[in-house]
C-alpha cells in the first residue's frame, strides 16, 4: 500500500468486530512505532499490549473516550526518567510527548495497511490506568491505541485547506494563491 493512501484513508474507528488481532500484526505495529524519529534519539516509548478481556474491560471503564469493544489495546507510555537523563527538562517534558505521538502515528498507519482499524484515546484516567496496569513512577501513560478489525467506515472530518494554513518565507504570505 502506498503510504499516502494509508495517511488519507485511515479513520478513527469506534466499532469493532470480535476477531482477535494476529500476533504477527501486533509485532508489525510495534516495530513501526519504534522506527519513529525522536528528539535526541531518546526513544522514550514503552508499550503495554492489553489482550486479556478482563484487563481490557477495566481499562475501557476508566477511559471515557474509549468506544467500541476492540479485542486489543496498546498503551504507549513515556519513560520520563530516561528522557530526563538523555534530554534534560526539554526531553522529559516535551520530547517524550512528541516522540510518543509520532510513534503512534506510525502504529496507526501500519495497522491500517494491515487491514486493521484503530483509534487514539487520550481521555483516560492516568491515575486509574497506572493502578490497574501496575505502572511504576517515572513511566507516564501518554496515549492509548485501540486496535481491531473495523466494523464501520466513518467518513472523514473536513480538513482545513492548505491555502488557509500555509505561508511562504514569513507568516501571512500565502504559499498557495488559490
Amino acid at each position: 500500500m502506498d503510504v499516502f493512501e494509508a495517511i488519507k484513508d485511515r479513520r478513527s474507528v469506534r466499532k469493532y468486530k470480535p476477531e482477535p488481532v494476529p500476533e504477527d500484526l501486533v509485532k508489525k505495529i510495534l516495530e513501526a512505532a519504534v522506527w519513529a524519529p525522536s528528539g535526541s534519539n531518546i526513544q522514550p516509548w514503552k508499550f503495554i499490549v492489553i489482550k486479556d478481556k478482563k484487563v481490557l474491560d477495566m481499562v475501557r471503564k476508566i477511559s471515557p473516550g474509549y468506544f467500541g469493544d476492540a479485542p486489543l489495546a496498546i498503551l504507549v507510555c513515556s519513560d520520563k526518567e530516561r528522557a530526563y537523563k538523555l534530554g534534560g527538562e526539554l526531553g522529559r517534558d516535551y520530547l517524550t510527548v512528541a516522540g510518543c505521538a509520532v510513534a503512534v502515528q506510525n502504529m496507526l498507519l501500519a495497522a491500517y495497511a494491515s487491514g486493521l482499524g484503530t483509534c487514539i484515546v487520550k481521555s483516560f484516567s492516568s491515575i486509574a490506568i497506572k493502578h490497574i496496569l501496575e505502572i511504576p513512577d517515572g513511566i507516564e501513560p501518554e496515549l492509548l491505541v485501540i486496535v481491531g478489525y473495523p466494523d464501520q467506515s466513518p467518513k472523514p472530518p473536513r480538513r482545513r485547506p492548505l491555502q488557509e494554513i500555509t505561508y511562504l518565507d514569513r507568516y501571512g504570505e500565502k504559499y498557495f494563491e488559490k
Partner: protein
Amino acid sequence: MGKEKSNGDKYLFDLAVFLATSASGCVEEPHLYGPFRLIDALSRLIELPKYATCMKDDLFLAKMKSVIDEKKFLLVSDTEAFKAFLDSLVREFAKELKRRSLERR
C-alpha cells in the same frame, strides 16, 4: 431476580466509574468534552430499566438514546452541528416534559 440485581449492581458501578473518571478528565479536557460526557452518561442511564423491574421502559427515552448514539460523535466532525444537536435535544425534552406535565393535571 437475583441475576438481574447483580447485573444491575454491576451496571450501576460501571456507570459510577464512568462518571467519576469523566469528572476528573473534564478538568483539563477541551470544554465540549463536558457536554459530550454528559450525553454519553444520559445514553447509559436510559438503559437502567433493563436491570430494574421497578422501572418501566420509556419509549421517549429510548428514542432519545437512539438519537444521542447516532449524533454524539458530531463533536469530532462538526462542533457547530454538535451544539445545534444539544439544543435540539433540550427542545425535545422540553416538549415531552410539558406534554407529561399537562397530562397529569
